[in-house]
């Protein structure tokens, strides 16, 4: 390899490699170091504190609360969003044969929340759920139902945020499932029918569900990864409140790091968050390699 070739390689790849180091690898390394210090943004000193930050996160009520809230949120959003995404995709897929244009239109509607600006939509949800001016409580009062304080009731707020999270992600999952459904060969359904699977239900369990295996897994991991990062709706609607009832791990990271400037503690939260996501990815790869070999 001559000098000119090396120069031209450097010119092509150098900027991107430098950017990756400065924007990703160096910061990740620094976060792992800071997590073991008591560094405060703006403070002159910095000291090693070992595992204290992690002990604080897992040992304090506040820290455990944020972790538990996030896990609750994720465990509601995953099954609901994946399940509804699958149902809508099955429905639209079936409808596409007789009413293709209606099916396309509905598909666009379901996908709309994915393209829309979540913060603006959250502000609209806030108006919709407003105790006195909102439509939801007006309607439920008219029907004689209770009119709860969706965003300021401590026992309810996390479920309200979960519902908005589901609303936002169903369309994305639907698109992934539609792609999965389109990839199933029609001959498989013919074969299933020969084997006696004549009802739609039997065909679903015999062909559709197993063939969607890889898609379902992918959708679940993607949904989990984005649910773990829930931030926009929390920051817009509750700021983690009332009384930390809707505090989540990324919101806690933001609050501790950039409101209270506790960079060390916030770095520890970051590390835990990152490791959880890595675990999720590892799980995905492990399951895919072990289980899913259809094609």
């Amino acid at each position, binding site marked *: 390899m001559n000098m000119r070739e090396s120069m031209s390689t450097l010119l092509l790849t150098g900027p991107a490699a430098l950017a990756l180091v400065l924007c990703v690898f160096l910061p990740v390394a620094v976060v792992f170091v800071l997590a073991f210090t008591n560094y405060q943004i703006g403070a002159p000193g910095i000291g090693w504190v070992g595992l204290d930050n992690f002990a604080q996160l897992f040992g304090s009520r506040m820290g455990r609360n944020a972790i538990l809230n996030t896990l609750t949120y994720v465990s509601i959003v995953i099954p609901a969003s994946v399940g509804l995404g699958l149902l809508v995709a099955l429905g639209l897929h079936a409808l596409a044969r007789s009413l293709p244009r209606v099916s396309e239109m509905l598909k666009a509607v379901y996908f709309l929340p994915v393209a829309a600006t979540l913060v603006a939509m959250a502000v609209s949800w806030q108006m919709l759920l407003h105790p006195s001016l909102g439509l939801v409580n007006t309607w439920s009062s008219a029907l004689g139902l209770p009119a709860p304080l969706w965003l300021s009731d401590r026992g309810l707020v996390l479920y309200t945020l979960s519902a908005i999270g589901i609303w936002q992600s169903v*369309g994305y999952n639907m698109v992934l499932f539609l792609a999965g459904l389109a990839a199933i060969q029609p001959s498989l359904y013919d074969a299933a029918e020969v084997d006696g699977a004549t009802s739609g239900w039997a065909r679903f369990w015999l062909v559709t569900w197993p063939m969607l295996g890889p898609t379902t897994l992918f959708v679940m991991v993607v949904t989990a990864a984005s649910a773990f990062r829930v931030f926009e709706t929390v920051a817009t609607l509750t700021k983690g409140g009332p009384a930390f009832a809707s505090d989540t791990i990324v919101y806690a990271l933001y609050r501790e790091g950039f409101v209270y400037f506790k960079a060390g503690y916030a770095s520890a939260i970051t590390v835990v968050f990152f490791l959880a996501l890595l675990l999720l990815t590892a799980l995905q790869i492990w399951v895919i390699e072990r289980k899913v070999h259809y094609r």
Partner: protein
Amino acid sequence: MKRMVLLGLLALGAVVVLLPFIWMVSVSLKPQAEIFTSSVTLLPRAPTLANYWQAITQTAIPRYLLNGALVTGGILVLQLLVSVPCAYALAHRRFRGRGVLFAAILAALLAPFHVTAIPIFLGLAQLGWLNSYTALILPFTATAFGLFLLRQAFARIPRDLIDAARVDGMGEMAIAWRIAFPLAMPTVIAFAIFSVTAHWNDLFWPMIATTDPQLATPPRGILFFRDAESGDAPGPLMAGAVLVTAPLVLAFLLSQRRFTQGLANTGLKG
């Protein structure tokens, strides 16, 4: 019969999905008196554009939209400038360290932006660059996802085509930009949609990197607006929310296929 039930259920779900959109537009068209009433209705009885007029002339909403365009545009241009040559080299050149570089890109895919926020904030503070467009744009220069997508797209370009260009005496940089880049346009567009949507909608980083309302991107700006009006002017607030949401929603409605590809299918095909 069965089909009607199916259609009914799907339509019902669609109404629920649309409800916040309908409500946002409806409130934005209502006069103040109709919002603050005990008999709330879904649709405005006397629709007016006054709220939009107020949002555009008396608030910083236009400024937020401009900031959004500058920031998302700046990020996309920078990402492409850095990524296209590198992705081309990865796909069509042999050099020492190529395997390491590709592995590094795959590894970087695993780290969401939240993980790097604290050190990047500290670095920008050290340089005195916080509270600037630079702070909003620069940290997103490296895009492992963009590098990966573009490399996969460039790798599908036939070797012969690249070799022919080399024989014609074209430089490597010229091949990357004048041959590989246009041929990979569908992937470039999918990535552009992904990048612009992600950064137009982002709240996390603008909340960290800037405190100056003059620099607010649309989501950050909407929150400044909401906190300032504190419940007194929901009409203009909803008009602002419509204006912030409109660009991407309209773009989506105009090119649904490209959008769904850019936001969803890119992850699957790779």
